């Protein structure tokens, strides 16, 4: 359940190849408040896929920490972070992109993981195996998955 099926990974790569140069984690420009003004891929986010990313354990697993009323059909929402209901009323698209890519740029020291960050980890592992990561570690989410999640968050209005 925790492993990303190869087919999915391959599909992600294949779709990635169709984009013009997704912005790499190291190249991202955060503003002073941790927001990212421009799309990481130039391709509009797919909110339906963003929803999948948010509920899938090996991907965003956002519901592990956040309750979301619109995802009430998914069992077990956590309470480590605030509810995401109304997130789009509180934040703009650029803020949300920054929050999902690396929330530590907005909330210093936050427990929320950085989903689009390539290096700087302590004892990085190979997914959930407990073994050491081999070679360069890809970010937890792809650039397009970040855009997809942002598109979904933008639907969360109260």
């Amino acid at each position, binding site marked *: 359940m925790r492993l990303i099926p190869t087919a999915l990974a391959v599909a992600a790569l294949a779709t990635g190849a169709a984009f013009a140069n997704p912005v790499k984690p190291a190249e991202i420009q955060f503003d002073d408040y941790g927001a990212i003004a421009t799309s990481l891929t130039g391709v509009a986010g797919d909110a339906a896929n963003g929803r999948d990313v948010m509920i899938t354990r090996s991907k965003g*697993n956002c519901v592990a920490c956040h309750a979301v009323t619109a995802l009430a059909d998914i069992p077990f*929402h956590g309470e480590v972070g605030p509810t995401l209901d109304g997130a789009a009323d509180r934040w703009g698209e650029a803020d949300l992109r920054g929050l999902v890519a690396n929330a530590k740029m907005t*909330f210093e020291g*936050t*427990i929320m993981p950085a989903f689009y960050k390539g290096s700087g*980890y*302590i004892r*990085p*592992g190979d*997914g959930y195996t407990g073994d050491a990561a081999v070679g360069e570690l890809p970010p937890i989410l792809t650039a397009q998955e970040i855009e997809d999640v942002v598109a979904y968050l933008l639907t969360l209005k109260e």
Partner: protein
Amino acid sequence: MTIHVATRATTGIALAAGLAFAATADETANLIVNEEIEMVTHTAAPAHVENLDEIVSGWVFRSAETQSLQMDDFDNPGMIFVDQGMDQWNEVAGTAGNSCATCHEDVAVTMAGVRSVYPKWNEEAGEVRTLAMQINDCRENQMGAEPYKYTGGEMANMEALISVQSRGMPVDVAIDGPVQATWEAGKELYYTRTGQLELSCANCHEDNYGNMIRADHLSQGQINGFPVYRLKNAKLNTAHARFKGCVRDTRAETYKPGSDEFVALELYVASRGNGLSVEAPSVRN
């Protein structure tokens, strides 16, 4: 061992955690085993646990059904393994023709109060020893027998047998003198944010105990109940196996059971429970 300075999240979450905790945990639930042994499941945090006012046993955070399994030895599935540990205690093994009983005789007499002070300093060896290390030291050097696998079933059985002789006694591990450097190293590990998720033990078990993380009700990650019978895998689990699982879940490369790092972490985590009762074998989900 490389030690990295941890950034700690000191946000509104800690406050929120406290509120949620008051709402979800039954502060009044008492753990009395066999209508006889009264356990301390809540008590003032020792001075060396700077960020907590109160320390709380993991038992408190479990469902009423899981809690009740630990209240009577006839219901506690962990007790079977204590019986198996007793068979191992009396079994002659190794080249010297000894059993544990040859030297230590009645476990109820010689091992009372042992678990509550482990891990502890061993003067002759000049090292901090966990109970598991001491058991294997006796197997190898007093019996000429093969050591048990560090997190294996036989080790868990023996730990349970020895620990149950201290049931109800307060955890009281030393943190100063010769163990201090190890304790400091364990503390550093506790606050280090590991893995691709960049989470430390403290992020979950100090900042967020009482909160739900997906389907799990977070406890303080105390080890006064170890070894623990888990309904999830229907066996006794050692502390280092649990540490390994928690580190793995941060998408990190784990440390090895029995490694210097996990020994240090065990000492530190045990000391965070000073004052709680030894509960082993406890029952968790």
